[in-house]
């Protein structure tokens, strides 16, 4: 292997987090829906299985069980991504330790990396006699890695992380009005300027950690900011009908037909053909829309217990109408800015990206083996 630069190391760290998040999303979404629908129909946690319980109690309880396990899912995902199968046992354990110590999602996140790298180190470096080869993946690595990472959590890292988590939560719960507006604005901008790319995903991971502590308002902002792009671009299409300045070529109008329904499900990528034709104007307009919608949603106290699902997630939300209003206002802002900024074009202008428009690729970005 070539020596790893710090940039490469960061890329690796990010890849492990993203891998874990990719496992996490279906878990959170299903759990969130179970919990939310259960609670909508008056479900409560089943404390004692001997007592009678109703159907919605089972839904509520199942949702709560899953969401309580998020530190385990993230820790196992990260450790698995780093060390493959030997990472699973220590990852699972460190997630449970994080729950046990109330260090929550951040605890699981940090613990997952430590568990994974210890397991990987042992896997790569541990030398055992021939007769013990079979014991290595079965017993030696998972046992040693679990013990080591558990001790690190209990005696070193767990407590500071718990204190940090608590401090962060208390701070966010105590935001005053202007701080809320600012917070919503920032989350809104960060979630809407790279269309589901790396910035959006980093924010997503942070908001998931808040969500696991029951702070659901910021996630509503992210969802809305992700949807401002398809909604705003569609609104801009209707503006061109009304005001007569054509801003989309035929190919772009065509792509809106799939981009909008995808947008309803909180998938931004359908807008790519439009975005890449005019990157900077699009980023500016969606950023402004995300900022306005985000600030408004935070201010009105809309909250979403599930992190994905778009309009369908509305059934689970607190103040869903405030959220919808914020989405529409943000999208309108995007539409207006985009409509004003974009140069007029004829519907049949051919505007396709040629190779010359593409960004240069550096050999540094490629990993070759």
């Amino acid at each position: 292997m070539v020596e790893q630069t710090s940039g490469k190391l960061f890329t690796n760290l990010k890849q492990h987090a993203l891998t874990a998040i990719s496992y996490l999303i279906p878990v959170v979404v299903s759990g969130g829906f179970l919990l939310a629908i259960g609670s909508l129909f008056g479900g409560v946690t089943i404390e004692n299985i001997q007592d009678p319980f109703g159907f919605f109690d089972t839904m509520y309880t199942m949702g709560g069980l899953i969401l309580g396990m998020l530190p385990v899912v993230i820790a196992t995902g990260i450790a698995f991504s780093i060390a493959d199968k030997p990472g699973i046992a220590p990852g699972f354990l460190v997630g449970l330790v994080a729950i046990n110590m109330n260090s929550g999602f951040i605890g699981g996140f940090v613990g997952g990396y430590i568990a994974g790298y210890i397991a990987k180190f042992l896997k790569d470096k541990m030398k055992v006699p021939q007769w013990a080869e079979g014991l290595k993946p079965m017993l030696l690595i998972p046992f040693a890695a679990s013990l080591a990472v558990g001790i690190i959590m209990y005696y070193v890292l767990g407590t500071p992380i718990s204190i940090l988590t608590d401090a962060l939560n208390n701070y966010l719960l105590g935001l005053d009005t202007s701080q809320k507006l600012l917070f919503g604005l920032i989350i809104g901008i960060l979630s809407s300027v790279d269309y589901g790319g790396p910035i959006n995903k980093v924010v997503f991971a942070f908001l998931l950690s808040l969500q696991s502590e029951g702070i659901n308002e910021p996630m509503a902002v992210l969802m809305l900011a992700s949807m401002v792009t398809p909604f705003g671009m569609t609104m801009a299409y209707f503006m061109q009908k009304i005001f007569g300045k054509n801003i989309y070529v035929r190919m772009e109008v065509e792509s809106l037909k799939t981009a909008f329904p995808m947008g309803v499900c909180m998938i931004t990528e359908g807008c790519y053909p439009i975005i890449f034709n005019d990157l900077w104007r699009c980023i500016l307009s969606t950023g402004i829309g995300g900022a306005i919608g985000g600030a408004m949603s935070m201010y009105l106290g809309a909250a979403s217990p599930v992190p994905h699902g778009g309009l369908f997630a509305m059934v689970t939300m607190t103040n869903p109408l405030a959220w919808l209003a914020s989405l529409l206002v943000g999208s309108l802002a995007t539409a207006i800015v985009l409509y004003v900024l974009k140069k007029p074009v004829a519907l049949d202008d051919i505007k396709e990206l040629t190779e010359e428009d593409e960004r240069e690729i550096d050999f540094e970005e490629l990993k070759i083996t």
Partner: protein
Amino acid sequence: MNIVGIAACTAGIAHTYIAREKLVTAAQKAGHSIHIETQGTIGVQDEIPQKLIDQADVAVIAADVKVSGKDRFNHIRIIEIPTEVVIKSPNKFIKKVEELMQKGANA
């Protein structure tokens, strides 16, 4: 060139498939044959047939997350890249792959 590869992104519902489409279009335009398998959140789709793996000259992995089955490409050169880059610059990426393979052949 015979190219095989994998596309996979974080959410596994959109970037994965866009990356695949861009790669396939760009590669075919440059006259290569290509087969890209997707590893979305639904699991593996369009799995690469073993025959194509045997014939392949290079493997391209456009992924933001860990992919499975990388060891299938142990006999050939593997090039890894984030999905974002192939989505934005598919043709230039294919050019780079060509350059790299040239260099490899001369070295």
